[in-house]
């Protein structure tokens, strides 16, 4: 039995780029436009994070999530969050079964047990139900009746929420928002994109994404790629730059810009810095590099931090978005050598 062929770093990086490009292409077969959302979603997947997708109904959020999981050959579950949804409906419950005259409780896994879990309209469920996802998102395990059940990697939660129709909704608590690697905003399609959507969805032919990995080996392959992301190197000046961004966005923190002190109540947590670095690493690999650059970080700032900033009353009254504050912070914080 011969030794497995040694894969060089160059080949690993090339494989990552190839896989990512194929996944994007496969999702793009189904989803028209929204390349940025697709890229960010896949980035979060390879970075090991979760994504909160915000957009009005009918933009294809659910379809995009489903297509992404199909393209990667991962299992997919969808949970429609409603006010009467119970935590056990998500994580599973113990059910009493009878076999051979004996009655036993058996754990019946909920829909959280999948590689890709879509929490549709997550803000419609009660906080109690929403919190049921917390442990799963962070610990990648669920605990039911004292028993802990690990979730099979790769595990990813894609949650959607509707920015309108806020009647009867429960805005996600800060702790839960912080657990999402990205928050991406899905905008309305452009006219030409809409025309393409009509052609694809109302014609006789249907478009489906083909899995780029065999279903059996997909999780392992993706985990290897995730490990590659972790190997990307970050120079000390880049780390200082990321720390500087976090500081600039923290009210009353060191280096906080005036807009931050004026409009924010809370800034990003250390998870925000982690998200920046991880996303930057994926960006670096996508560019064929094995080290992070300033541009990689700058590209990740808005999606990785926008949901981690807590606006104050004045910002809401003046309709100052977190995106604009982050833009200001990024501009003010010059890159050390840019």
């Amino acid at each position: 039995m011969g030794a497995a062929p040694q894969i060089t770093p160059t080949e690993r990086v090339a494989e990552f780029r190839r896989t990512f490009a194929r996944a994007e292409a496969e999702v793009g077969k189904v989803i028209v436009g929204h390349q940025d959302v697709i890229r960010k979603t896949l980035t979060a997947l390879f970075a090991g994070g979760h994504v909160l997708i915000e957009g009005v109904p009918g933009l294809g959020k659910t379809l995009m999530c489903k297509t992404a999981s199909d393209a990667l050959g991962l299992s997919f579950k969808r949970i429609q969050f409603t006010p009467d949804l119970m935590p056990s409906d998500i994580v599973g419950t113990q059910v009493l079964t009878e076999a051979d005259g004996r009655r036993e409780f058996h754990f019946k896994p909920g829909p959280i047990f999948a590689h890709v879990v879509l929490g549709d309209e997550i803000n419609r469920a009660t906080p109690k139900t929403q919190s049921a996802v917390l442990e799963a998102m962070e610990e990648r395990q669920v605990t039911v009746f004292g028993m802990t059940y690990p979730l099979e990697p790769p595990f990813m939660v894609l949650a959607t929420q509707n920015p309108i129709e806020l009647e009867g909704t429960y805005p996600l608590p800060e702790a839960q928002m912080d657990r999402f690697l990205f928050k991406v905003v899905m905008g309305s399609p452009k006219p030409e994109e809409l025309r393409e959507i009509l052609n694809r969805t109302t014609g006789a032919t249907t478009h489906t994404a083909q899995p780029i990995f065999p279903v059996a080996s997909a999780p392992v392959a993706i985990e290897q790629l995730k490990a590659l992301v972790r190997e990307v190197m970050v120079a000390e000046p880049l780390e200082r730059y990321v720390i500087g961004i976090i500081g600039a966005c923290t009210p009353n923190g060191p280096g906080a810009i005036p807009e931050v002190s004026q409009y924010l109540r809370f800034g990003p947590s250390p998870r925000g810095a982690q998200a920046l670095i991880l996303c930057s690493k994926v960006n670096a690999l996508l560019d064929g590099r094995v080290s992070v650059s300033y541009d990689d970080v700058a590209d990740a700032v808005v999606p990785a931090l926008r949901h981690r900033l807590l606006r104050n009353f004045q910002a809401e009254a003046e309709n100052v978005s977190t995106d604009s504050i982050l833009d200001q912070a990024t501009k003010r914080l010059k890159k050390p050598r840019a």
Partner: protein
Amino acid sequence: MINPVEQIAAARRRLKQVAALRAGLTLALPALTALVLAATLDAIGEATWERAGYALTPARLGGLRTALALAGVVALAGCALMAWRAWREADDFIEAAELVDDAVGGHQEIVTLASLADPAEPPAQRELRTPLFPLLWRRASGYLERFDPNGAFAFEVRRPLVRSLPIAAAMVVLLAAVALALVRPPSAEQVQARKLRAAAQQLASSPSSADKDLAAKILAAADALENPKLPPPEKLARLAEAMSELQKHEQQGSSPQQSAKNTSGSGNGKNNSGKGAGQGNGQSQDSGNGQGKSQGQGQGANQGNNPNGPKGKEQIVELQNDLSKAQAQVESGAESKNNAPKPGHGDQGNALKPGSNPNKSGGAQKPDAMAQGNIPLPRPDASAKGQLPAGGTKGGKNDKGGHGDTHLGEFPVAENFPRFYKPGEGPAIEIHDARYVLFRLPTEVVSASGGKLVPDTNRPTASVPYANVPLKAERLDATPQERQLVPPRYRDLIH
């Protein structure tokens, strides 16, 4: 394959040099400006404030020069300090890598490599390397293959110099402002001291040690003359010292050549010819006979006595004159100070001050004995004595000293004294209730060859006719219709 770490190290060395030079140059121009200004302060003064009639006292000039030189030295020290600091601050491997990264467009791959391969970092830093590090090394090598640190980080001389230009300009402006604040119109003593200094400098350039000693004495006298803190007696003492030194110098120069006097008596000593005549005959206005003869003899004597030739003699005489003037100014200044109605009254400076009446007899109005005695009077030696003109003042070229009392007293002047006192010079004169004023009229100038009248157009002449005779009695009571009877330059003498 190129070793990227070595390339980054080479770039760091280059960056240190560039940083040191750039930082040093920031203050180089101000330092250079200050030193140049200090060195050329005299020339600047001559071209600016002295041309405008102002002067800086030597103490202030020296202070200003010292301040400028000090500023220059401090700026130079600042240059060195800044260069050293820049050198030390540029000694950063990661920072050098960042600059290299920018230069080659390495997307921070060079920086990342440097942060993981910094030779100064402990080996623990290498644990941060991942399996992708070899790929990073190869990519960095690729970037640095054609990288030349010397070309990428060129010495930029222009920018730091331009940056330092405002500082240098500010220095010049500051000097101008300080000079404006310090310059004053020169007093008569200052003017005299300056003349003495100039003469002393000429003497000092001579190889003779005697000349140098004399120059030192004269310089000391000039310094004393300009020193406002020195009391007048002290000043006079210094001037007397210089005068006696000058006399000694003159005697030393003349004694070895006594024997040559008679033999060279018939030489061409035109410029010195008037001295003997003027000295010998002060009172007469007659045009004496035998002037040509005596002149020629006198010239010869003088010529023969002068060890340095006519030019050196002139220089000595000039020096004597200057010293005498200085003495007179000191005396008049002291006198006017004593007689001034109030100290600090606004009649200081060049204006005439009330003093003792020169018409009164008495020694007080005479110049002091020392000053008088120091005037070098050409004394023909024994063999030439009989050839002196008996009384013909016309026999000399310049016989100004021979006209006797002119209400100015017997002021000590050399025969060659070229002009009368100006207001502010000489002993104070007070003329009260004068019915008339007798002015000494310039005499005609007779050339040395004799017989030919040469009008001196440069002499001061009156713009309106006037006579040196008493006014008629009937006109005394009459309202004067002509107000220009007295030449304007003499009006201040009459109160």
